[in-house]
Each structure stands twice: as C-alpha cells, then as structure tokens.
C-alpha cells in the first residue's frame, strides 16, 4: 500500500512526516536522534530503485558535514566508513556544507548529484553513497570570482537534463547559472537577461545571485528561476531569461517549484525585498501560476493570515502524487502541505527550528 514520506530538515535536526497516499493527515517523527544539533541543509528522496532511498546532508557546527542515506524510510541511517563526500588533497579545500542532494533522472540509475559549500558539484554513480568532485566546474576560471551571499558561497541547485546525461545545469550564489553539455568537462555561464542589483553592470556574464532554478522534465528547455530580485523563465534551455514577475507582489524570494504533472504550473513564495525579508503583506502566501508565469494567484486557503516568516530556497517542494502535493516550510518552524496542488493547505508541523529543506514522495 502506498504511503507518503516528508523529510523536514531544520537548523537543529531532522523530522519526518508520514501519511497515507491521500496525504491529508500527517504524523511527525523527530527529532531524529542521529541529527540532533545538526543543520540539515539538504534532504532528498530517490524513488527510482526498488526501495526508496532517503538522503540527509547535515552539518554539525562542531563535528562537520556528512551525507547519510536510509533504505528503510528513515528508521536507520548510514554513511560509508570513509565518508561520502570530501575534497581531494590537491583541491586545497574542505567541505563546509552540502546544500543539495539531487537524484538523477530515471534513465541514469545510480547517478546522484550533490552541490556544496564551497561551490562545488559532486557526482555519485553508486546511488548516492559516495561522490566525486566534478573537476571541470571546480577548475573553472570564473571560480575565483564567485562570491558569498548571506548563506555562504555554494552550489545549491543541480538540474540534470531528463534524457541527455551529458547536460546538467547548476545554480550558485553568487555566480548564477552554469551549464555543461559534455558531461561536466566544460561549463558555461547561462545568465543572459538575469539582472543584478549589487554590481555596477546590471547584466554581467556571471555573478548573479540566483536563488533557485527548476524545470519540468517533459519540457526541459523551459526553465524557471527565482533570482535575488527577479523571477524569470527561459524557453531555450537557459540561453535567454525573461521576467515573469509581473503580477507578483514582489520579485524577491528564495524558492521556485514546478508542478510535477503540469509544466505550465509553477510556485513561488514572495518576500517584500532583500532589505526586508518577510512575506508580502505579512501573510503566508504561496503564489501559483498556471500559465508558466503570465499570471499569478495567491494561495491562501489554510495558510496563516499573519506571518513574518520567510520560506528558504529548499523549503518548498512538490511530490509526484496525484493530485500533486505541494509543501512549504517556514523559518518559524511550520510546515504546510497541500494535497491538491495548492488549492487547500494543512499544517503538518509547528514550532520546529527554522526549516531549511523539505522533500516529499509517495512511495510503495
């Protein structure tokens, strides 16, 4: 029988929501003892194998970062004896945080990508147990000019092409979007049209603070980006980006997510501005477009009418259930879930530490 699992990574540990396939009522396990006092910046669910594999990228301020996986839906967690991820000696760097754990497409079993701070891309071919540094991006001549935002300097988004294993997009803050079409050997910036407000040249080749990018696997050339001010769409695989912020109360925010079954439907969570990072109108509102960003509507049914809590870049996600589930976690420790693509919402958790990351899946 199908069940749903919801991983909630917070600044102080991991919680796991569990539900049936309807996803209307949730129970909450946690904090999971293994991750107490760890900042869980990344969580992941790989549904490609016979059994779903869960991932946690946690960082202890004392004991450092590590990636763990679970093959029993979060009852036990493992890491390989020598660790899952670490810079080789000649890279002269050490891992600070794992910001993203992204299973590859269905046609690339065993491939899992990770993005880290400092800005590096990692590739696993053993199902996410161990990872190797993608040298082509690490050795990029631009790397010395990539900067750090509030959260540090990190590759926080990895977007593998759904059918071409040689094509991968990443997004980093700061630096922007970079793409490879030769399996990671060479990388080019892909930020044309994305504006920056913190450099003299508003349209540099790279250096943007892109907060999140996404695309629907059925329409991979159409990409969406939430920038540090600016919401964009590209219809040509990232070559040119055009604003789709008209109709939103603000173009500032962190997450952007696409509906799992409808490539036209996309979700954002606007904040007032970079200088005032609280929800617009001080209301907790997810905004949804059903026409790829031409028009937007505020989703309010079940969300609080007063809120000062932002949603961070990885604290919004969807599941592949039918109807689609949508989830947001807030910096005041609440998690809201919709089992009807955003029409209505229920509270799954409250009073947790700051929510940093959420991922969900219907499994079994």
């Amino acid at each position, binding site marked *: 029988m199908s069940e749903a699992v919801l991983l909630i990574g917070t600044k102080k540990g991991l919680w796991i929501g569990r539900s049936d396939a309807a996803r209307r009522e949730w129970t909450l396990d946690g904090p999971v003892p293994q991750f107490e*006092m760890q900042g869980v910046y990344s969580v992941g669910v790989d549904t490609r194998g016979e059994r779903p594999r869960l991932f946690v990228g946690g960082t*202890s*301020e*004392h*004991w*450092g970062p*590590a990636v763990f996986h679970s093959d029993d839906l979060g009852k036990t967690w493992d*890491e390989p*004896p*020598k*660790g899952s991820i*670490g*810079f080789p*000696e000649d890279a*002269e*760097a*050490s*891992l600070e945080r794992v910001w993203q754990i992204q299973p590859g497409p269905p046609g690339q079993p065993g491939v899992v990508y990770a993005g880290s701070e400092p800005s590096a891309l990692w590739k696993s071919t053993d199902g996410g147990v161990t990872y190797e540094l993608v040298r082509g991006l690490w050795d990029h001549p631009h790397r010395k000019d990539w900067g750090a935002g509030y959260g540090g300097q990190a590759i926080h988004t990895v977007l593998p092409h759904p059918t071409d294993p040689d094509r991968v997009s990443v997004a980093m803050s700061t630096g922007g979007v970079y793409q490879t079409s030769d399996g990671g050997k060479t990388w080019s910036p892909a930020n044309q049209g994305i504006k920056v407000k913190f450099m003299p040249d508003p349209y540099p080749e790279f250096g943007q603070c892109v907060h999140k990018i996404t695309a629907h696997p059925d329409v991979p050339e159409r990409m969406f980006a939430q920038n540090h001010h600016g919401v964009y769409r590209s219809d040509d695989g990232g070559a040119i980006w055009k604003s789709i912020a008209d109709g939103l109360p603000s173009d500032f925010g962190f997450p952007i997510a696409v509906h799992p079954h409808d490539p036209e439907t996309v979700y954002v969570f606007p904040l007032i501005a970079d200088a005032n990072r609280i929800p617009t109108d001080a209301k907790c509102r997810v905004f949804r477009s059903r026409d790829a960003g031409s028009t937007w509507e505020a989703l309010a049914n079940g969300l609080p009418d007063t809120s000062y809590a932002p949603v961070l870049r990885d604290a919004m996600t969807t599941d592949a259930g039918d109807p689609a589930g949508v989830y947001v976690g807030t910096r005041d420790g609440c998690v809201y879930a919709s089992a009807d693509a955003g029409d209505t919402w229920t509270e799954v958790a409250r009073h947790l530490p700051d929510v940093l990351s959420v991922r969900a899946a219907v499994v079994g």
Partner: protein
Amino acid sequence: MAIGVKLPTVLRPLAGGAERVEVEGATVGEAFAALDPPLRRRLTDEQGAVRRHVNIYLGNDNIRDLDGLSTPLTDGDELLILPSVAGG
C-alpha cells in the same frame, strides 16, 4: 606508544559506546590518523586540519597552544576531546 583519547558523550556511538579509545602515535596527528575514519572525520576535516570548534587538550593545554597536530606525545598520554562553546 599507547595514547588514550577521551571522547565526549556525543561521539561515543562512533566508538562502540566507549568513553575512551586507545591508539598508537608519537604525535597528536599520528594518534588521530590511527582513529577509525568515522570518528576521525568528526575531529578533523578531509585535509587533516582540526575542526574549528573542536578543542583537544593534552593535560590542561589546548594543543593549539602547543604545536597543534605536531605536538609530541609520550607513552600513556591522554588526549581530551571537548566541543567548544559555539553555535546558537
């Protein structure tokens, strides 16, 4: 030479629950290199540097005030691992 390493509670699960493990080494660095990798990774990063908020004492001295990982050890020395007061 035999060196004792005393662990804080939070790290003991990585040593089978033991409060103290014994390793061989003529320096702090050598002693650490002899630790099981999952435990070693919590104390040092992948380049071998002691993590910023980990303190290692030889007697009453923080090894940062001695010679760091090169600090020489003698048989029977005991290293005390303590997390610093960090984070919020």
